């Protein structure tokens, strides 16, 4: 199993690592049982993600996909963010080892969970957004 240079760069120098006190939405997915927990914070103003940050417990791929996902959502509208798939995150990282593909799924879900939290708090419905999974589904 080998990681791409992109993955190693985002793992050793992760972008956007911090708790966000004034986040518009926070999403936490995964659990210690599966070995990965991702928490994504989004700052949303006028339907645009103006800032994103994360905290992740997990393997190199989990950290790298969280880092990349937060980079990708910044400056995008909510509608655009909903459409960012795990495959897009993986592509941006020049691929992931097969056994690590689930990490990119988790990153997508963490972003969606943060959007869901934002929608819940503001009584909004976001088209194409499903409620986050619960429990041990990962």
């Amino acid at each position: 199993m080998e990681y791409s240079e992109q993955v190693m760069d985002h793992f050793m120098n992760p972008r956007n690592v911090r708790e966000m006190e004034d986040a518009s939405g926070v999403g936490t997915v995964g659990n210690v049982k599966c070995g990965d927990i991702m928490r994504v914070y989004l700052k949303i103003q006028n339907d645009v993600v103006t800032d994103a940050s994360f905290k992740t417990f997990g393997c190199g791929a989990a950290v790298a996909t969280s880092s990349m996902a937060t980079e990708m959502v910044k400056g995008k509208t909510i509608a655009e963010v909903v459409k960012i798939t795990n495959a897009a995150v993986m592509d941006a990282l020049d691929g992931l080892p097969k056994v690590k593909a689930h990490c990119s799924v988790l990153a997508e879900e963490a972003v969606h969970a943060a959007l869901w939290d934002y929608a819940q708090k503001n009584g909004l419905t976001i088209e194409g957004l499903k409620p986050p999974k619960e429990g041990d589904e990962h």
Partner: protein
Amino acid sequence: MLYFDSAATTPMRPQVLDAMLPYLRENFYNPSAVYTPSRKIRAAIDDSRLVIANALNAKTEEIFFTSGGTESDNWAIKGMLERGRHVITTQTEHHGILYVCKNLEKKGFDITYLPVDGEGFVRTEDLEAAVREDTALVTIMFANNEVGTIQPIKKFTEITARKKIPFHTDAVQAVGHVPIDVEELGVQMLSLSAHKFGGPKGVGALYVKKGTPLFSIFQGGAQERNRRAGTENVAGIVGIATALQLATDELPMQFARVTAMRDKLIHEIISTIPHTVLNGAKGGNRLPGNVNISFRFIEGESLLLHLDMQGCCASTGSACSSGALEPSHVLMAMGVGHELANGAIRFSLGPENSDDDIADLMKILKPAVEQLRALSPLYDDFLKKEIS
């Protein structure tokens, strides 16, 4: 390069390579041939067998050369199945045993996987209770590869001897590192592997006590007294014997030296890095080179990657690193929770390590742990709980 993975494999000793080379060059003859040059090859195999036998306090006719620990383990189990439909093993075996047993289950055999306590020890009463009329074999590892726990084998064989059940032990992690006397242990079979004690990869041996009804699993030529067919790996056999001789000669000195380094490393980590837990045996019944530590709030693979980026090799049986998405079966059987199991790292030391290595490792380890904790939502949650 800082190497802390001796339990995975060891560098080959230069003397071992020197001893092997003639058998890869001019001494190429088939040891089974009748002409004069091949007799020298046959003699080299006989001499090697004597070295292994002496090191284990066995007889020469009780040593069978194999391709390594996995083959020895497979043979010990599969060669015993005509005795019964039940095999007793433990939940913390190496996969060389565990997956053979899982496979046998699919074929209709009954397997008992004995549990272990929090330090990885099998309880004698559990073994006593598991033994049945149709038990073909009990196989319990001598020392665990992940956490280093050394089982009280002699106590187990007292039980199996009473019930006349053959006992096998996978001693791959122990041979060459701790004193082993097969007579004193009372085992009928014992597996060993050369590359764990400074020998070459691809060669091992199985000790089979005289009178043990072990069937062959390789049929073919009459090598190894008709029990393991196949032209001998002569250079490998010379290599395993040379390595075991060296390891045995140095054992008292290295045992003390490596044990002291182990205890120093454990102490350094536990006392200077907060939220760390030692996994495995707390007392002396631990392999001299084994250090297994859980770093709370971080995941093992991410720590290994950090160490690797700074030229340090260690390992983990945890979730992501092995490619398998399950945490270590050993730690889970010991009742270590998921979070701690996922954050476990094994540093295994050998004669090649020094106190300087430990000092160098600590310089890398502390900042790596701090950096990863700064990333961890679990650490955030923990700090918030501390404050409130």
